[in-house]
């Protein structure tokens, strides 16, 4: 029984300790909910000090949740009323749902909003565009990162067209020193995000195809949408042995350890790769199917910031959101996290050459966002989830490009009215 009392005391001590410490929070402290655990140091050391220096009296805390738990835990905490003051917004429907539940404040009239173009705001606006509920933070661009040393060693030059692209892959494969391309199908989202969405816009002509799909005038079984699958179907031969069980982080490691020559990428990789790779890296944009045609890139609105509608510190939170529309923030964020490109109208000078390479494509090519994100993933089966599974199957060769497209179209038609005629 003695043990029992000891433990009882311990329990009591724990309660008092927990209670006492949680009560010390200051009034002007605002906290930020985010899924970007890896940005913790950047926020703590660069962004927050810069804000606090110009806004005395407001303290900011960045409290990230691991990305796999973010949405579920955020929704639970919003329902229980314990969520943070500022909420990092995923693009389109996820945040729209949070807004519609009354958990995100209407920010349409926020001072800082005038610093963002409508295109940027569309990812965090209601369908009719009348209300905007998150401040756009950054977009990410798809392309290919390559090992410059390996290219030099094998005498390769950057491919411009699809034909050249496969010629380069053939040469790397023939030589045998490097795995031609670092990608796996274990984590299915890698297959559509780095594969299909990366090369696809050149086939479906960016926004033109994307909007036609939403309107119902094009189908996923049209040539423009099947061709990227046909191209993807050839990738399997150039991936590492056992790519079927290669995970996303395996792919990253494979490339940064110098074992693979080309990495189908998103620009978000840049900061991580810069610290991990000890060889020179370059980037090339998705190759066009026909030499000389217009080029299109996926320049996807990826991350924004909104305000908890039930925050106890709306003034402090709005002060922070307004500051996020400033040139100071744009430059600070884009340079602290190369590869996350500012969506504001301010022109930001990027110090990182690789990030500069990615962003320079905006000048020669037309930008579009990922085709499944707006409206098309609102039903069951979910087009985005299906896209991952089907793209992985195409790369593995367990389904033909035509069947893959037919499968997706059938699923979309089953619930999306404009596609039903």
């Amino acid at each position: 029984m003695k043990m029992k009392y000891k433990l009882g005391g311990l329990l009591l001590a724990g309660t008092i300790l927990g209670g006492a410490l949680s009560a010390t929070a200051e009034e002007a402290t605002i906290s930020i909910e985010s899924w970007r655990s890896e940005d913790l140091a950047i926020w703590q050391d660069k962004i927050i000090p810069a804000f606090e220096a110009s806004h005395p009296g407001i303290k900011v805390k960045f409290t990230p949740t691991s990305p796999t738990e973010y949405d579920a835990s955020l929704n639970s905490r919003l329902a229980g009323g314990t969520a943070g003051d500022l909420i990092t917004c995923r693009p389109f429907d996820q945040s729209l749902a949070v807004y519609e539940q009354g958990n995100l404040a209407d920010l349409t009239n926020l001072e800082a909003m005038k610093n963002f173009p409508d295109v940027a705001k569309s990812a965090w606006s209601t369908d009719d565009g009348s209300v905007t509920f998150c401040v756009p933070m950054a977009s990410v661009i798809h392309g290919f990162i390559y090992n410059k040393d390996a290219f030099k060693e094998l005498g390769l030059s950057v491919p411009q067209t699809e034909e050249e692209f496969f010629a380069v892959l053939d040469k790397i494969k023939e030589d045998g020193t490097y795995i031609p391309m670092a990608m796996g199908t274990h984590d299915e989202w890698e297959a559509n995000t780095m594969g299909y969405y990366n090369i696809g816009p050149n086939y479906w002509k960016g926004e033109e195809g994307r909007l036609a799909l939403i309107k119902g005038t094009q189908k996923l079984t049209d040539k423009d949408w099947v061709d990227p699958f046909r191209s993807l179907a050839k990738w399997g031969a150039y991936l590492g042995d056992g790519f079927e069980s290669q995970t996303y982080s395996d792919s990253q490691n494979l490339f940064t350890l110098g074992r693979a020559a080309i990495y189908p990428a998103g620009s978000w990789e840049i900061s991580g790769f810069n610290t991990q790779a000890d060889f020179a890296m370059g980037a090339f944009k998705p190759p066009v199917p026909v030499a000389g045609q217009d080029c299109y890139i996926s320049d996807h609105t990826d991350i924004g910031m909104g305000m908890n509608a039930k925050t106890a510190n709306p003034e402090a939170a709005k002060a922070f959101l307004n500051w996020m529309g400033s040139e100071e923030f744009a430059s600070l964020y884009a340079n602290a996290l190369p590869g996350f490109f500012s969506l504001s109208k301010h022109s930001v000078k990027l110090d990182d050459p690789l990030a500069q390479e990615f962003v320079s494509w905006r000048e020669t090519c037309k930008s579009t966002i990922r085709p499944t994100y707006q409206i098309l993933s609102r039903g069951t089966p979910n087009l985005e989830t299906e896209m991952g599974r089907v793209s992985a199957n195409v790369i593995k060769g367990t389904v033909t490009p035509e069947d893959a497209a037919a499968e997706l179209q059938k699923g979309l038609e089953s619930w999306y009215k404009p596609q039903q005629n």
Partner: protein
Amino acid sequence: MLWAAWFAQGIHGGNMQTTVRKQRFKWHIVVFLAPAVLVYSAIMIFPMIDTLRLSLFTQEGSKEVYVGLKNFQTLFHDPNWSGQFWNALGNNVWFFIIHMLVQNPIGIMLAAILSVPTLRFAAAYRTVVIVPTILSFVIVGFAWKLILSPLWGIAPGILDAIGLKSWFHPWLGKEEYALTTLALISVWQFIGIPMMLIYAALLSIPQEILEAAECDGITGFSAFWKVKLPLILPSIGIISILTFVGNFNSFDLIYVAQGPVAGPNYSTDILGTFMYRTFFGYQLQLGDQNLGAAIASVMFAIILVGVCIYLFTVQRRLRRYQF
């Protein structure tokens, strides 16, 4: 507190051992049960009923609307959902079969060896067997993915060293192997539990019984089969039902190793991952609490039927020995 009154009435009914005693209210039964029942009802049963209730509703805007059994109809009749459901159920059954065929026999065997009184280093072995059980899913997932990966060379290297290189496959990425591989990893992780339970049961067998058997010339293997095994049958019953419940509720390992979509091509999707994906959402697929709750209710029903079959048929037939 209705149950308390009804229940208190019952307590007057008398007690198993001391029926001779006077019929007075047996406060000690209430004292023994109250703490567990109170904590458990408030923090487990109430939130769960509150959640399972959601399966009869649907969300329209920010309003909850009663729809009766419509969610269950969707689950069983809409091909988009029923396909996934039956796939997950089938996978779950296979997951369970592997545990029953591999985990429990090996666990019993290890416990039997460890309970031999003359065995040296028994404590050390016992600790070793439990080590995988105390690891977090994150670490188990990472370790096995690293070992089985075709890229970093541990499993291919080991198979190569013993001349079986051709046996290697990227198991976790192939539809035909992934589920079995994960089930075996799970067996590896949890084998300590049946081992511990059976070990505890074997230790409870009094020395006199074994000595009596020895006098009759029953030793070694035959002592295990003829004397010990029948005595630990109730414990084997328990581990079977716990394995059943655990497997039909499990989710973490597959979630950590394969992600919420339980790839490749849903081949490792079990009821737990299916339910979580539906309830909490994944990527652009928003969480649907109502349909998720419907899946949870079905899982609950499956497990309840299993447990009842055990409680009311199997357990009643097992002879229990008191020592």
